[in-house]
C-alpha cells in the first residue's frame, strides 16, 4: 500500500524532470536520464508520446511527433524504463501517459508491464479524481504511486485530491497547458500554501518552470519542482550534436551544464 506515502525517502528539495521517451532516440533518452540523475534529479517523469496530447503545449507536442516518428509507443516507452534501470539509474521513474493508450493495453497487461519494467509511478493528466478511483486502487494494490494533480481552478476539490494523493502531489502552477511562462500569477503562493495544508505527501510545482529564478522561487514555497518543456526544448536544440557520434559527448556535456545552471 502506497497511498498517502511519499515516494521519496529523504530529500532537501525535489527536482523532477520530464523527458519524452524516444526523443531524439531510445539510447539518448537513457543517456539524458542518467545525466539528470547525476545532476540531482529525485525522479524521472518519462513521457509517452501521444497523437493527441491535450494537456501539452507546442514544445512537448513536437517532442511527441519526433518520438512517434521513431516508432515509440507506450509499450516501448515502458520497456525503456527497464533499460534505464539496467544501465544503472537508481531514482524512481514515473510513467507520464494519456489515458487512452493505457486503456488499449488493458488493465492486466498494463500492470504486468509496469511491474516487469520496474516503473514506480504513474501520472495520467486526463484522468481526474472522479474518473481515477479504480486506477488509484489498482496502483495501490501493485505498489505503484498514482500521482494526482491540483490546479488553480481546483478550489474545493483540493482537499479530497490532496488527502488521497500518493508519491507526491503535482501542483499545476497556472492555467493552461505545459510550456514555458515568463512569470507567474501572484496568487500562486497562496494557492501552494493552501494545498500544502491538506497534503500528507510532498508538494511539487510544475507547468511553466523554465529558469533558475523560477526554480529558486518555487523551492522557497514548495517541496520541489517539475520541469518539462524547458528541458525538452534544450534537448531539441541539442539534437544535431547529440545525434552525431563525433559530437554526442559534447552535446551531453552541454545538456549537463544546462541542468546545472537551472538548479544552481
Amino acid at each position, binding site marked *: 500500500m502506497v497511498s498517502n506515502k511519499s515516494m521519496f525517502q529523504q530529500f532537501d528539495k525535489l527536482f523532477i524532470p520530464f523527458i519524452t521517451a524516444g526523443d531524439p532516440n531510445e539510447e539518448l533518452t537513457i543517456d539524458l536520464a542518467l545525466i539528470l540523475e547525476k545532476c540531482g534529479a529525485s525522479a524521472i517523469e518519462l513521457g509517452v508520446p501521444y497523437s493527441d496530447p491535450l494537456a501539452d503545449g507546442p514544445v512537448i507536442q513536437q517532442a511527441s511527433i519526433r518520438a512517434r516518428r521513431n516508432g515509440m509507443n507506450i509499450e516501448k516507452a515502458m520497456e525503456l524504463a527497464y533499460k534505464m534501470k539496467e544501465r544503472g539509474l537508481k531514482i524512481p521513474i514515473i510513467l507520464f501517459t494519456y489515458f487512452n493508450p493505457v*486503456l488499449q493495453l488493458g488493465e492486466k497487461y498494463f500492470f504486468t508491464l509496469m511491474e516487469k519494467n520496474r516503473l514506480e509511478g504513474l501520472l495520467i493528466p486526463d*484522468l481526474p479524481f472522479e474518473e481515477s478511483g479504480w486506477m488509484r486502487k489498482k496502483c495501490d494494490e501493485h505498489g505503484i504511486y498514482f500521482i494526482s494533480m491540483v490546479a488553480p481552478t481546483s478550489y474545493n476539490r483540493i482537499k479530497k485530491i490532496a488527502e488521497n494523493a500518493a508519491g507526491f502531489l503535482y501542483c499545476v502552477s497556472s492555467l493552461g497547458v505545459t510550456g514555458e511562462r515568463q512569470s507567474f500569477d501572484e496568487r500562486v503562493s497562496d494557492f501552494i500554501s493552501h494545498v500544502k495544508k491538506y497534503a500528507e505527501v510532498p508538494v511539487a510545482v510544475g507547468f511553466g518552470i523554465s529558469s533558475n529564478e523560477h526554480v529558486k522561487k518555487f523551492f522557497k514555497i514548495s517541496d520541489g519542482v517539475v520541469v518539462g518543456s524547458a528541458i525538452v526544448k534544450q534537448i531539441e536544440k541539442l539534437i544535431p550534436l547529440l545525434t552525431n557520434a563525433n559530437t554526442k559527448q559534447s552535446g551531453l556535456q552541454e545538456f549537463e551544464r544546462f541542468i546545472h545552471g537551472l538548479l544552481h
Partner: protein
Amino acid sequence: MKYPDEYGRFGEFGGKYVPETLMKPLYELEEALKDALSDSSFQQQYHQMLQKYSGRPTALTFADQLTKHVGGANIFLKREDLNHTGAHKINNAIGQALLSKRMGKKKLIAETGAGQHGVASATVAAKFGMDCKVFMGEEDIDRQRLNVFRMQLLGAEVVPVTSGNKTLKDAVNEAIRYWVQHCEDHFYLMGSAVGPHPYPMMVREFQRIIGDEAKEQFFNEFGKLPDVVIACVGGGSNAIGMFTPFLEEDVKLIGVEAGGKGVETGEHAATITKGTKGVIHGSMTYLLQNQYGEIIEPYSISAGLDYPGVGPEHAYLAKIGRVVYESVTDEEAILALETLAKTEGILAAIESAHAVAKGIEIAKTLSNEQSILICLSGRGDKDVHTLMKTKGGVENGF
C-alpha cells in the same frame, strides 16, 4: 431522460476525461445548464431566437417526387437546411451562446471542420455582441476558404491550427488547450454532441428541437409516427436531436456514418461500424485508433462527418441496440444528392445526403403504407465547389 448519470455517463460511455484545470469549469457549466433549462424565461428566450432569428419551425416536406422515383415507402424530409446559416448547427449555437451570456462570459471559443459550426458560432457572437475565436485546421482552411471568409465577415477571428494533421480533430485539441488557459472568462461553444460531460447532454438538449418539431408535425398531419427515422452521424448532433423524442416510441432509428471510399478500405469515418472503445476529446466512446490508442485520421468527402470519434450517447445507443448505425460511401452519397436535387429541387449538404442515400435504399424495401423521415441537416451551397471537383466541373455537363 434517464441518461447521462451524475458522472455524465451513458452506460459505459461519456464521462469527463480532462485535465484537472477543466473540472471546475465543467461543473460550473453543468450547474448553469441545469438552472437554465429549468428556467422558463431562458426557454422562452431560446425558442424566441429559434423562431424570430433562425426561422423555426423548419418545414416537414413530403418528398413526393423522390418517393415516386424510388417506389416504396413515403419519404419525408425535416428541413434543417432552411435554418439561418443553412444547417441545424445554429440551434445549438443559439442555445450555448444564450447560456454563455447568462453565465456572464462574453468570449466564445469554437472549433470547426468544414466551417458550418464556425459560421453558426460567428453568427450568434455577432448577434449577441460577443468575441469569437474559431479554431480551424490549416488543411480545412485551405479547403473551405469561403467559410473562412464568411466567419471573418461576421467579425470572428479564425485561428489556424498547425498541430497534428491540421484538421477537425486537431482544431478541437487546440480549442480545448486554449480553453484550459482561458477558462475563467471564456465559454467553449462545442459544435457536436461530443466532448466531456455536460457537452453531449447540452448539445442534445439544444438540438432536440429538430425531433420535437418533426414528431409533432408528422403526428398532426397523419395521426401516427413515421416507421423509420434516419439521420447522418459525424459527431452526431443532428442525429441525437432528431432521435431523442423518438427513443421511447416504436420507431426504427438509423444513424448513417460516412463510409468514405468503403469501410473495408480503411479510408472512412465509420466510427461505430469500425471503431473500438476509447477516449477522445474528454469522452469515452468509439473511435478510430490503432493498438496503442493513437487516433487514426478519418476520411470522408464530407468534412462535417470527417471525425474519428462519435458522441458517447450514440455509442451507448449502438451498444444497447436501440439505434442501428450503418454506413454510406462517398459515391452513394453523391448519387443520392443528385437524385434529390433533380427530383425535389433541393440541394442537400453532402453530410445530409448520406442520410438521404440510406433513406432511398430502405424506402425500396418498404410498402407505400409506410413512411420514412429523414433529417436533412443542411443545405449544399457550401459543397458546390467539392461537387464540381468530384463531377469534373461544368465542362462535363454537370
